[in-house]
């Protein structure tokens, strides 16, 4: 496409946006609304994932060593535990360390000061890579000769996994639905613009314009509307997120929730918005114009 033609297509696309001012405004509004809802779910999903990831990294199993094993034999189990694929790390905690941790919980209460460390077992704190596989990993650790038993909060890990899956699934469904809705509305806007210009299109066809030549101004129109909607939605999303972050931080009840800083999410979110605006804008215009080109 040469510069002369590019300028003509862009000019035609832009003038069509102004000629159909209300519909253009309406389609930008709908794109913005859909993208903000879509973006909110994306941000929610990312925050929940980050939170779950954090909780996952803190989630651990305790593998108790058989008390008949010597100290050296107990320490030698570390490499065997770490050989299990889902184990991220295994930290040895001796009886004495375990006792001092226990006592520290009770502020060295005199009641417990005579406890002998022998009543406790050596143990390993086992960190996992993926807590959704906790049950299997627990069994694998338990099967190691020298491990007496394993303790883990299976129900918590399963809870994390379920929440994570629900958030991801709901987000994907909503994102897809909104994408289709945006495309449909964009198509209708372009359809109106095209209907208004069907005579013009017929004349263009009659004088020998190629389909590509007729199509380009509509593609530009869709593209500009889509990208403008994406940009406005991004700025609005930024403002809303910043507002929400301040409110959560200020609140004494929900400030335990750690909100990811917008700076970390801005680029991927802008990318998603621009891509969606691009797809919705161009996709919407191309699907409609095809019908009018069959002359």
């Amino acid at each position, binding site marked *: 496409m040469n510069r002369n033609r590019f300028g003509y297509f862009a000019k035609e696309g832009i003038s069509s946006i102004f000629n159909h001012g209300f519909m253009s405004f309406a389609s930008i509004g709908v794109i913005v609304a859909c993208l903000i809802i879509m973006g909110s779910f994306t941000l929610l999903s990312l925050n929940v994932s980050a939170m779950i990831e954090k909780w996952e990294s803190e989630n651990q199993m305790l593998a108790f060593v058989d008390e008949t094993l010597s100290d050296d034999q107990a320490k030698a189990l570390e490499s065997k535990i770490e050989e299990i694929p889902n184990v991220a790390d295994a930290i040895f905690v001796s009886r004495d360390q375990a006792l001092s941790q226990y006592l520290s919980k009770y502020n060295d209460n005199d009641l417990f000061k005579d406890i002998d460390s022998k009543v406790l077992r050596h143990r390993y704190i086992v960190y996992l890579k993926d807590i959704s596989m906790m049950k299997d990993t627990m069994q694998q650790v338990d099967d190691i000769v020298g491990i007496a038993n394993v303790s883990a909060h299976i129900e918590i890990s399963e809870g994390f996994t379920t929440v994570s899956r629900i958030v991801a699934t709901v987000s994907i469904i909503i994102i897809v639905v909104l994408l289709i809705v945006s495309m449909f509305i964009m198509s209708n806007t372009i359809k109106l613009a095209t209907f208004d210009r069907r*005579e013009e299109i017929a*004349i263009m066809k*009659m*004088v*020998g*314009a190629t389909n590509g030549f007729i199509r380009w101004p509509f593609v530009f129109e869709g593209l500009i509307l889509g990208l403008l909607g994406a940009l406005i939605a991004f700025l609005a999303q930024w403002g809303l997120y910043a507002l929400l972050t301040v409110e959560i931080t200020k609140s004494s009840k929900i400030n335990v929730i750690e909100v990811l800083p917008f700076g970390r999410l801005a680029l991927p979110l802008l990318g998603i918005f621009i891509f969606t605006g691009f797809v919705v804008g161009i996709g919407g215009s191309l699907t409609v114009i095809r019908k009018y080109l069959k002359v």
Partner: protein
Amino acid sequence: MVRMTNVCKAYENGTKALRGINATIEDGEFVFLVGPSGSGKSTIIKILTGEIAPTLGEISINGYDLNSIKPSQMPYLRRTLGVVFQDFRLIDKKNVYDNVAFAMRAVGASSKDIKRRVPYVLELVGLDTKTRRKPNELSGGEQQRVAIARALVNNPRLIIADEPTGNLDPARSLEIMMLLERINKLGTTVLVVTHEKELVNRFSKRVIAIDGGRVISDGMDGYYNYES
């Protein structure tokens, strides 16, 4: 050149619009295609402009074989044609100049060519002083002149005028016909579809008369001898 050999057209509802049309129009000719309503005139125009395909028969226009033409080639065939309609079909929001320039832009002409060609064509049709007017500020005859300028601007080999005087009074109709005759003298083939007997008989041109989808007369005597 236009060559139609045994052209038939039956619509999906069963109407047989054309029943074996045979006609040849040589380059540089001025031809009237006449006939009453429902005779098949519009169907011939639609076939010639590639809007619809014939059911049977062979057609070639300006070197393009309509029986085997690919859809991607259709725009290039249309660039060899200039079509003028009874209802002008101008774009209301564009002025005279832009209505004509639009046809050149649509075929990818450069700005330089548009600036050179459009004023020339507007002068040819006598509208060089009204280039900034919108169609609704012009008379019917002037609007038809704009439509002729638009048909002419891409330098077509054949101009097809479909009832070009249908919406005009007799004086304006004569002016338009004289303009088309002038364009023909400059070398463009002209095919005028009409049912205005008096107008046709004022010009000594070839007249092809059709009725019931058949050619019923084809004479060079310039006489519209069919009673509609």
